[in-house]
């Protein structure tokens, strides 16, 4: 029987681990005492609360709601975000915009946990200022897009709870929209909607902007048409999503600059 000191033969281990319940009721009279480990459990339904211990944890995340949408045009981008900030079923403010200006040609729209969004924005602003001092010019939209992706991935194992959409003009002057997930995976797309109301808006944009499931000829949309579609989308999302409403801040980015419009929504 030459066992190594550190190991046990499997048969021996399982024999030792057999439960004591097979021995029947305790030997001494103990009517008032219940020995939990030998008492049969078949008459109780345990919902995982007593048998398996569980923790109540502090969650570092909160969801402040909201929806954002960006649509790229030929030489412009329309980016919009609602202005409601909420927590649970309560509204904290009706006038908090979700759009953050990055450069004169680029805007970040982000919904999710407001503190994470603000911190992310300030991280990016600091890096962008350093770039402007070093390089003597503003960061291009594609460079900001890559930097945002890297910044998000730095926090791969404790992510920023931020659903980002970056919108701007690329170096050729064409509209660019980049869509992100929470840990930095990104892609350039014709449009992007994210946040609590994204499911209401995305199929609509598929149909109207990219002409999917349509047999008629695709037509380039003008700025006014795009803004009108964006307003319709937010009215719809505001109707059906409780976290979206109060107002929409719409930014239109063109070669001449960024114009802003506040479009009111239902306050319920």
């Amino acid at each position: 029987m030459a066992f190594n000191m550190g190991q046990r033969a499997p048969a021996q281990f399982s024999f030792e681990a057999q439960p004591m319940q097979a021995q029947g009721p305790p030997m001494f009279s103990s009517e008032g005492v219940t020995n939990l480990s030998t008492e049969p459990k078949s008459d109780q339904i345990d919902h995982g609360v007593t048998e398996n211990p569980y923790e109540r944890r502090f969650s570092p995340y909160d969801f402040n709601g909201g929806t954002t949408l960006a649509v790229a045009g030929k030489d412009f981008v329309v980016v919009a975000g609602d202005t409601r900030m909420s927590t649970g079923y309560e509204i904290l403010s009706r006038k908090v915009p979700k759009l953050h200006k990055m450069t004169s040609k680029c805007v970040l729209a982000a919904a999710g946990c407001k503190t994470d969004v603000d911190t992310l924005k300030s991280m990016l602003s600091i890096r962008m200022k350093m770039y402007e001092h070093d390089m003597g010019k503003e960061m291009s939209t594609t460079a900001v897009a890559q930097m945002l992706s890297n910044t998000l991935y730095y926090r791969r194992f404790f992510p920023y709870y931020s659903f980002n959409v970056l919108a701007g003009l690329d170096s050729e002057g064409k509209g660019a929209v980049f869509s992100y997930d929470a840990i930095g995976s990104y892609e350039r797309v014709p449009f992007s909607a994210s946040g609590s109301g994204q499911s209401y808006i995305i199929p609509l944009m598929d149909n109207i902007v990219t002409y999917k499931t349509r047999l008629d000829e695709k037509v380039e949309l003008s700025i006014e048409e795009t803004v009108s579609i964006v307003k319709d989308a937010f009215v719809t999302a505001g109707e059906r999503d409780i976290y979206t409403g109060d107002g929409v801040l719409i930014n239109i980015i063109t070669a001449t600059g960024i114009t802003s419009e506040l479009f009111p929504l239902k306050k319920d």
Partner: protein
Amino acid sequence: MSILQYNGGAIIAMTGKDCVAIASDTRLGLQQQTVACDFQKGFKMNDKLYMGVTGLATDVMTLSQLLKFRMNLYKLREDREMKPAVFSALLTSILYEKRFGPYFTEPVVAGLDENNQPFLSAMDLIGAPVSTSDFVVAGTCTPNLYGMCETMYRPDMSPDELFETISQCLLASCDRDALSGWGAVVTVITPEGVTTRKLKGRMD
């Protein structure tokens, strides 16, 4: 995964001017595996009344057969057709009977009443009804369906416009849902008659 999302599905019913339309996809799946693309979810109850049922497929079939049986019995006893509002109330009652062991379905009722006025109603799995004048949706991609219908719906559409609108709403919504799609059927009910068409959509 929720039981109501086990088989997948999507249904819309919409009203127009003196007409209603009901559209459903035809996918049957076992979670992510698609098993059939010709599974019927819209059932004709009588010439002016259709019922669409989504949810667990076995309950879809059972419920539609049960309702057909009850309608036939009513017709034999009363010697008249069942009105859509009465049918909806019957369905509510049947679902609530099983309050603590429900049919895992979310049915939708669409029809024309005796004055050829459109009637719509939808229910949750234990029979809580909602009757609207514009549209009702049910299935695994309800946010998508609500978004599309809310934007695209206009009151008093003609049967052809209604068909076009409801088809676009269903196809665009199903294309963004993995559990719905794989074919679609649209039925338009008018006082003159019923037209059923199959839609050509993405088969993925």
